[in-house]
């Protein structure tokens, strides 16, 4: 979802930004073996570029060279594997295998374009037969299996086009959950059945003294009650009907909620992770009290439980359970409860290693609350509070009050960032095919006005036509009506249209967060893709500094500038080595921030990081960076401990540089998709809001967030002219998958009137209600 990034990688094809990842040093190893030969990954990088330019001759010259030089080694690497490599370093260690497989893949895609189906089939089949464990990196943040995608291409050849629906592997019988044993207590009084020891320390544990009593209180499926579910007659029935057959993960999004509950309650995942997912299923079934019990059982019994995300980073079930509890209680004031003092800290939890984690847990306690009284609770009078810190001297600055709360101030008033990512890509265009034009200049209807910003109209009746009562209004107007007050723009690789941004501010009141990639994808550093930007390399640093300072000089006096933004998830690496040397990266970020302020003391400086990866290194290295920002896709409950972690690790204000959810719900209709998307956004914004300054119980440091994104982009899944439904990665979304082409709060209808037609989704109105209050 690195929207701005993907636009500039126009040379790469399929899985649009597919690149084979070559670690630093490996290129050298390849050269050492074949002294005069280019590294495999280098050839692939060039081959993608040639393919993007439709230079067939060059594409085949480069891919053939890669295959001729490295096929033997690739086969040896494949033979040495017993399964698909899982971790990034394991994947990188078979780089030659990955490159050769991608060489065949590019050939297959090129043949497809040329209509040479037999040759394409042969290329894809070669990958499946010979290089089955090869993977390639998609710059949007994941590895993809070259063989798997080759199978899809074969499917395309066989069927004429690819439209990959997720396979329904488990029971799809719609059911609801009726608990056989709901437990004797709605809210388990844990003190009655055991003892909390060393609360708030790394020795915390809950020692059960009366297991039978606790089981009876907790009820079916909630630890330690593993018995009731097995006595549940419906469980036996489901077993007999073979509705429990299949992988438990496939049950997560099955309408057979009862089977999903039974499957997980008797599953073999680690107990803490299992309980979390039991909670999710119960929540989906509307059994909120039982769901709360499941989530809280994670906190009490397994606060340090962890799993792994699709991107191979650790995921902490205890912290997620706390976020879920707070989300549920916030959304359901009729429960009249609040969880206080609960906290789970994972020391050393900001890296990829779990072996060094230290879990410090306090399960807190539930207290009864009166919603009305809570609302009437007085907030601190800001005028009476002293300012602890202030960063910036001009019209935009951040300040911290004596209470520790942070605010962004614009023109003397608090400003919450209500931003959206804006990239109105025309249907049929794709950066992969070199067909993407600049939306800041596009005027396809030749009326002298830029299309998306000024010529868009709302297709109210969704008939894919512009009717008489559907006037042209433009996106800028629609965004203003939604309550948007800022957008994010990078000044690379295309220079932004300054006049457009001036108008956006002057006439629509929408400011711009102006960013520099700071070496991500080598942008600004002048480094070669391999080994990528090196934050200790003086030449790279000079180039990046020049790029950033040039940006600041160019725009600092523009009234539309909200603040400066450095990087875009650089901590994940990929043609930059911030992941390998985060200290050097953050030290450089700080150096850049310091230099910016020498030129422009009037705007704060923020960083765009990747969730909380290496957050512990950001704090000590970046005292001159004013705002911590990060892209985060955690689920409909918001961002969990993100705000508190930023506060604790860096004592900085924070905002979300990207968050969002697709409006496609596999197996369900358009309405369910939109509802799921709106629910996700509402939960996310509520979480942001509840962590803003002076909100009781929050971290007090949230400045806002940037919604990803304004409009569906059809090129992201596969075919730029088709609204692909493909789930590109597994995540905490309504149907369990990220559908990349459905992220907009506006749809493009059937695509025929792109880039003008807008169908406003439910999420649009959700924000309108929230932001226009």
């Amino acid at each position, binding site marked *: 979802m690195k929207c701005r990034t993907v636009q500039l990688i126009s040379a790469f094809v399929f899985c649009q930004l597919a690149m084979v990842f070559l670690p630093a040093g490996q290129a050298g190893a390849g050269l050492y073996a074949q002294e005069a030969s280019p590294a495999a990954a280098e050839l692939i990088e060039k081959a993608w570029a040639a393919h993007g330019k439709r230079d067939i001759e060059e594409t085949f010259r480069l891919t053939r060279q890669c295959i001729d030089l490295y096929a033997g080694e690739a086969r040896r690497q494949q033979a040495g594997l*017993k*399964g*698909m*490599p*899982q971790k990034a370093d394991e994947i990188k260690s078979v780089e030659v295998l990955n490159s050769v497989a991608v060489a065949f893949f590019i050939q297959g895609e090129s043949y497809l374009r040329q209509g040479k189906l037999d040759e394409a089939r042969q290329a894809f089949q070669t990958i499946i037969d010979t290089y089955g464990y090869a993977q390639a990196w998609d710059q949007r943040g994941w590895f993809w299996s070259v063989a798997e995608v080759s199978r899809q291409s074969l499917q395309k050849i066989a069927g004429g086009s690819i439209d990959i629906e997720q396979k329904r592997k488990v029971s799809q019988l719609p059911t609801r959950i009726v608990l056989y044993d709901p437990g004797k207590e709605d809210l388990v009084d844990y003190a009655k059945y055991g003892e909390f020891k060393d609360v708030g320390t790394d020795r915390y544990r809950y020692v*059960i003294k009366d*297991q*039978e009593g606790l*089981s*009876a209180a907790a009820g079916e499926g909630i630890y*330690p009650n*593993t*018995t009731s579910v*097995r*006595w549940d007659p419906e469980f036996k029935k489901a*077993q007999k009907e073979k509705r*429990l057959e299949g992988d438990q993960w496939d049950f997560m999004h099955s309408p057979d909620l009862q089977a999903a509950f039974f499957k997980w309650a*008797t599953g*073999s995942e*680690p*107990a803490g992770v299992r309980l979390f997912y039991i909670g999710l299923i119960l929540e989906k079934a509307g059994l909120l009290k039982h769901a709360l019990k499941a989530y809280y059982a994670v906190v009490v019994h397994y606060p340090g439980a962890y799993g792994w995300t699709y991107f191979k980073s650790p995921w902490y079930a205890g912290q997620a359970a706390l976020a879920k509890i707070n989300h549920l209680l916030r959304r359901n004031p009729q429960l009249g409860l609040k969880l206080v003092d609960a906290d789970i800290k994972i020391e050393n939890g900001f890296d990829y*290693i*779990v*072996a060094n984690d230290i879990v410090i847990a306090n399960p807190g306690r539930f207290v009864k609350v009166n919603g009305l009284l809570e609302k009437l609770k007085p907030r601190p009078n800001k005028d009476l509070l002293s300012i602890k810190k202030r960063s910036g001297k001009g019209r935009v600055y951040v300040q911290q009050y004596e209470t520790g709360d942070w605010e962004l101030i614009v023109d003397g008033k608090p400003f919450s960032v209500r931003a959206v990512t804006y990239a109105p890509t025309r249907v049929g265009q794709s950066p992969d095919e070199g067909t993407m034009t600049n939306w800041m200049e596009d005027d396809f209807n030749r009326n002298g006005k830029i299309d998306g910003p000024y010529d868009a109209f709302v297709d109210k009746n969704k008939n894919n036509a512009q009717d008489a009562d559907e006037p042209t209004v433009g996106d800028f107007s629609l965004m203003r009506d939604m309550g948007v007050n800022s957008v994010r723009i990078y000044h690379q690789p295309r220079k932004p249209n300054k006049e457009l941004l001036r108008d956006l501010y002057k006439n629509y009141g929408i400011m711009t967060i102006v960013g520099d990639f700071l070496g991500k994808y080598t942008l600004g550093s002048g480094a070669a893709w391999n080994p990528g930007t090196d934050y200790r390399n003086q030449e790279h640093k000079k180039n990046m500094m020049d790029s950033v300072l040039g940006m600041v000089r160019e725009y600092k006096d523009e009234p539309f500038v909200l603040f400066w933004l450095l990087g875009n998830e650089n901590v994940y690496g990929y043609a930059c080595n911030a992941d390998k040397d985060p200290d050097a990266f953050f030290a450089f970020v700080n150096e850049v921030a310091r230099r910016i302020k020498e030129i422009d003391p009037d705007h704060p400086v923020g960083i765009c990081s990747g969730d909380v990866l290496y957050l512990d290194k950001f704090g000590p290295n970046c005292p001159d960076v004013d705002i911590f920002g990060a892209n985060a896709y955690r689920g409909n409950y918001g961002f969990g401990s993100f705000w508190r972690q930023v506060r604790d690790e860096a004592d900085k204000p924070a905002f979300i540089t990207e968050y969002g959810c697709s409006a496609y719900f596999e197996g369900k209709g358009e309405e369910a998709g939109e509802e799921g998307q709106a629910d996700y956004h509402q939960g996310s914004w509520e979480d942001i809001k509840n962590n803003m300054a002076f909100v009781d119980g929050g971290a007090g440091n949230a400045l806002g967030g940037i919604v990803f994104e304004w409009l569906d982009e059809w090129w992201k899944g596969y075919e730029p002219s088709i609204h692909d439904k493909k789930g590109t990665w597994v995540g905490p979304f309504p149907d369990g998958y990220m559908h990349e082409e459905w992220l907009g709060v506006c749809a493009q209808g059937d695509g025929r009137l792109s880039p003008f037609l807008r169908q406003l989704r439910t999420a649009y109105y959700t924000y309108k209600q929230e932001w226009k209050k």
Partner: protein
Amino acid sequence: MKKIIAVMLVAVLLAPCAFAQDKPGTAAAKEFWVFKDKGARENHFVPSGWMGDYGDVKLNDQSTDNPYSGTTCIQFVYTAKRTQGQGWAGISWQNPANNWGSKKGGFDLTGMSKLTFWARGAKGGEVLKFKVGGIGITPKATYPDSTEAEIGPVELTDTWKQYAINVVGKDLSYISGGFAWVATADQNLEGATFYLDDIKFEVDPALKPEGRKQEAMPFYVYADRSSMNNHFIPSGWMGDYGDVKIDQASKEDPYLGDTCLRIIYSGKATQGARWAGMYWQNPPNNWGNVDKGFDLSKAQKLTFWARGAKGGERIEEFKVGGLMGEFSDSDTAGVGPVILTTEWQQYTIDLKGKDMSYIIGGFCWSMNIDVNPDGATFYLDEIKYE
């Protein structure tokens, strides 16, 4: 070997005749012989099903060394040398010879109440299991036996003693495996020489069906390598099974007795799973597909002793039960994660309030590479239900 072939030939020739003549289900038939004496026309089955470490077994079917009745008995010598690397051996009496369920040859023994046989050990102390039926049930063959039943482990004495396998209430409509014995190397460290005689099905109107009995406590998963009290086998390898080695007779400072279990987890992710684990099952490799659960309702807890080779080894979970299948464990319980020390520590899994009425998976551990990046070696001992 020639002798065995000869025996088989005779049996094959006789079997159809016997099948035609005997109607065990009728009131007249009070007994049905598996093996009486070498060459006896009453014999209905042949000891042709050699299993496991078949190279460890010698058979003398006309031993004159103090037979229980008649002039001969059968002598078996089991060397426990693990010739085929299995760690166990057994012999099944089949009809026809070498029939593992691919041929039609079962007898309808409906009406029989028990199988009886006489047995003695050369020294006493030999440990065996004895079994009826079970041919071709798992995996399912073309002509599977209609039931199976067993007793054991049984510790033989050095004098003749009669044993019985209760088959009342069992479906005896098709039995091609009349009788079998199984011995393990762990339970017979020095091997075993033993004698069998007068193996037959009998009618006993007074005998009642054998219910699943509640096992008495303590009930061991593992006591010592050769202990006949061991009730489960560490056969359920999970995850990166190639990363795991288990020594069931480690003499490295056992907590109690002569041996303990030593488990080495290399953390190499051989199968790519990044975790590994092991279930102790009954019978071996039972993932819920064989109806052989123990009734451990009397158990209030499971205790075990554990230590790490270096200390700091992290076991994600120790647990009991939890196997799901056609015959699922009735419940599950566990502890973890557990960080081991170099000293023996006792750990307890609380079973109070749990339904332990049917347990196939007696014990289990699991660990992963993420928190044990360099692998781990740990020891277990005295795993028992109490």
